[in-house]
């Protein structure tokens, strides 16, 4: 096989065995790689009803055929499993350098089964694969783990994907971190890894990725590079990172603030792309093969020592990465903390402890609402949890990873915490997963996108601001949004199958640009239409998986706050999400019945009827 390495690594942690298998070529044609192919393996091999933290849950790491090639942003790997936070199928992906290294070592995928009896890590050095003891690494933070593994293996080129203390302590929204600051972040994939006693996967690969038609491939790569080079999105990513989005969402009243009680944040200019670039950024940084370089390497400001961090092992005078938009929103606007140093510090704590900053900030915001309403009292917490408290933000982030005091409640995520205090209405999310940084009252399309995403609330499957800020469409009406969201979900799912970063799509690198790259790399004459079909097939497969896991139409909904209460002021004042109008259109556009179940005809059309 070209593009693909054609091999997968199957590791049974219970038995302590590692075996190499050939990739199913028929599935590779139908699902390509990354999210699609891993979904197919998970569907085939695992009972969706198992407890996500039991040994029966499988954890799949999957690259795509373009991972490790010079196609712009060909750096991604996808983690597919049953999410600890959601109980739904989850597909969290990450960039950096780990995914390409796995390809260079000779594997498209790793399927992890069972659970190790004691802490271990997986060591891969080309053909040499070994499960090693990790008791000396257990408890170590992410940066220490990565540096420690490089030292003990003596391989400076080693790439490490690992969990931090949050994953070990089964914080429900723990990440899998690679290259210290890159995360497969959402839905608790790190929690699943922690439940398997697997601290890290350390990879060194010296092989290469072959392509079928080199001349056509390089031509397609250069076409994509030139299209992206001319797109203004490329420069925006490079200059301002993703935090530039704050200005846009603020201007549309779609920047959720005060746990979604408002849609604009008064101090937004203290957190936006300009503030980060002008006051904290040292340099921008790229993932493997990335031509955008949206990563920010930042330093803290002068007075940042005032924020309490008890346990951090490293000196933080040196630089760390972030914040990107979602982290700046969740840790900043949502908690009303307009202090960039506090946000940076909380962001770095999340990275180094291995936690999702979106769920962290959002859960803390829910707790702050409970505190201000007097439901969580001073008896429950070690310091006041008022909105806007930078001290609370930094301290509770740390406490959450170690489940100290009230951090033990926060570590369960906003849904379980809200249920515990008998105020489930403070949970702002879908399918147990907290919302990211777009208020669907400002962008109506996000409402149906959030409600229907297979992995719970997610902004990466159909980013409706692309449509709703264009000026051609009213962002507050439900009409036309469901159709757009369905089409976009197919495209983004196809994107996720290739091993490319979704951000290429925001900088001109759409299907028209990367499908020819995939075709030339694999030697299979994929067309854009094929890819849209692959996206739809994968989406429906995930839906079938979720239905088997026990999710129903009742899970395709939004919190009452979004459906019934409008903002009091701002550009989106008084608007509510009209999901009752959008959801039926969405189902029918998908060829699903009124209960959200794919019809027989649709499954036959997609070649899924036998499943």
């Amino acid at each position, binding site marked *: 096989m070209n593009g693909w390495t054609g091999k997968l690594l199957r590791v049974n942690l219970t038995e302590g065995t590692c075996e190499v298998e050939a990739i199913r070529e028929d599935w590779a044609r139908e699902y390509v790689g990354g999210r699609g192919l891993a979904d197919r393996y998970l569907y085939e091999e695992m009972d969706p009803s198992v407890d996500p933290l039991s040994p029966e849950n499988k954890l799949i790491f999957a690259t795509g055929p373009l991972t*490790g*090639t*010079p196609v*712009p942003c060909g750096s991604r790997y996808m983690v597919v499993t049953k999410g600890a936070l959601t109980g739904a199928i989850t597909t969290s992906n990450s960039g950096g*350098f780990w995914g*390409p290294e796995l390809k*260079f070592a000779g594997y498209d995928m790793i399927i992890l089964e069972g659970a190790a009896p004691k802490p271990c890590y997986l060591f891969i050095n080309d053909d040499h694969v070994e499960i090693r003891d990790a008791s000396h690494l257990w408890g170590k933070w992410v940066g220490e783990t990565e540096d420690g593994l490089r030292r003990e293996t003596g391989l400076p*080129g080693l790439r490490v994907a690992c969990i931090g203390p949050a994953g070990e302590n089964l914080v429900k929204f723990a990440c899998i971190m690679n290259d*210290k600051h890159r995360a497969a972040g959402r839905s608790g994939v790190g929690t699943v890894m922690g439940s398997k006693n697997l601290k890290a996967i350390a990879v060194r*690969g*010296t*092989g*290469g*990725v*072959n*392509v079928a038609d*080199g001349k056509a491939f*390089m031509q397609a790569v250069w076409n994509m*590079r030139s299209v992206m*080079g001319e797109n203004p999105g490329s420069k925006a990513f490079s200059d301002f990172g993703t935090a530039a989005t704050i200005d846009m969402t603020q201007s549309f009243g779609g920047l959720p603030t005060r746990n979604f009680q408002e849609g604009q944040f008064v101090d937004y200019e203290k957190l936006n792309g300009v503030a980060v670039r002008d006051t904290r950024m*040292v*340099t*921008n*940084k*790229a*993932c*493997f*093969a*990335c*031509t955008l*370089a949206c*990563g920010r*390497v930042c330093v803290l400001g002068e007075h940042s020592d005032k924020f309490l961090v008890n346990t951090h092992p490293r000196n933080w005078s*040196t*630089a760390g990465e972030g914040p990107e938009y979602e982290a700046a929103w969740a840790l900043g606007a949502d908690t009303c903390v307009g202090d960039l140093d506090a946000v940076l510090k909380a962001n770095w704590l999340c990275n180094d402890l291995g936690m999702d900053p979106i769920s962290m900030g959002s859960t803390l915001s829910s707790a702050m609402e409970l505190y201000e309403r007097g439901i969580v009292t001073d008896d429950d917490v070690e310091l006041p949890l008022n909105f806007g408290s930078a001290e609370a933000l930094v301290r509770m982030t740390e406490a959450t990873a170690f489940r100290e005091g009230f951090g033990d409640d926060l570590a369960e995520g906003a849904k379980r915490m809200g249920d515990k205090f008998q105020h489930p209405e403070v949970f702002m999310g879908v399918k147990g997963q907290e919302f990211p940084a777009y208020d669907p009252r400002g962008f109506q399309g996000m409402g149906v996108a959030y409600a229907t995403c297979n992995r719970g609330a997610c902004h990466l499957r159909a980013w409706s601001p692309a449509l709703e800020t264009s000026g051609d469409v009213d962002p507050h009406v439900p009409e036309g949004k469901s159709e757009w969201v369905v089409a976009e979900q197919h495209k983004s799912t196809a994107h996720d199958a290739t091993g490319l970063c979704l951000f290429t799509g925001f900088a001109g690198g759409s299907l028209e640009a990367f499908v020819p790259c995939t075709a030339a790399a694999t030697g299979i004459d994929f067309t854009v239409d094929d890819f849209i079909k692959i996206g739809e097939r994968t989406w429906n497969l995930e839906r079938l998986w979720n239905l088997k896991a026990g999710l129903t139409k009742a899970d395709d909904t939004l919190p009452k706050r979004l459906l019934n209460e409008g903002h009091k002021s701002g550009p989106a004042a008084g608007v509510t999400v009209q999901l009752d109008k959008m959801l039926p259109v969405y189902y029918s556009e998908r060829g699903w019945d009124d209960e959200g179940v794919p019809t027989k005809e649709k499954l036959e059309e997609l070649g899924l009827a036998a499943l």
Partner: protein
Amino acid sequence: MTQMLNIVPDKCTGCQQCELACSWVQTGTFQPSQSLIRVNVFDEEASYAPYTCLQCDEAWCMNACPTNAIGVDPVNLAKVVTDSLCIGCHLCTIACPFGTVFTLPQNDKAAKCNLCGGDPACAASCPTNAIEFIDSDDKAGDWFGEWGDRVNSRYVEATTAGAK
């Protein structure tokens, strides 16, 4: 006029497109471990520096080679390895003060940057123009520019402090 690779680490984002391009030209696969240009990462400094053969005027690798397998390209003055003459003794890799001559595991022969015959793939592939192929009279000898001065400042500080 002679041309040279001008590398500006401050512009580098660490994406390794140059390594992919180099390995593609050298081996026909995308394989950073075979690249003759390497991006050095200085995480603590938040700095990334692509680094390859300097094409020395008086090249130590040439002097060391017992079989004259390293010669000079008459057009661009790159020092190039002739595979058929190389006996795999590794002397050139030891002689090079900069560590930019490699031996390849598959044939155990020397490999070094040959400027791709006058059109270096690394420079063409760099998305931020951190690597450019320029006329050497423009900037000869100023490989690391201000970045070099800055990184070297600690050494200078330490040695002058010692002198006092």
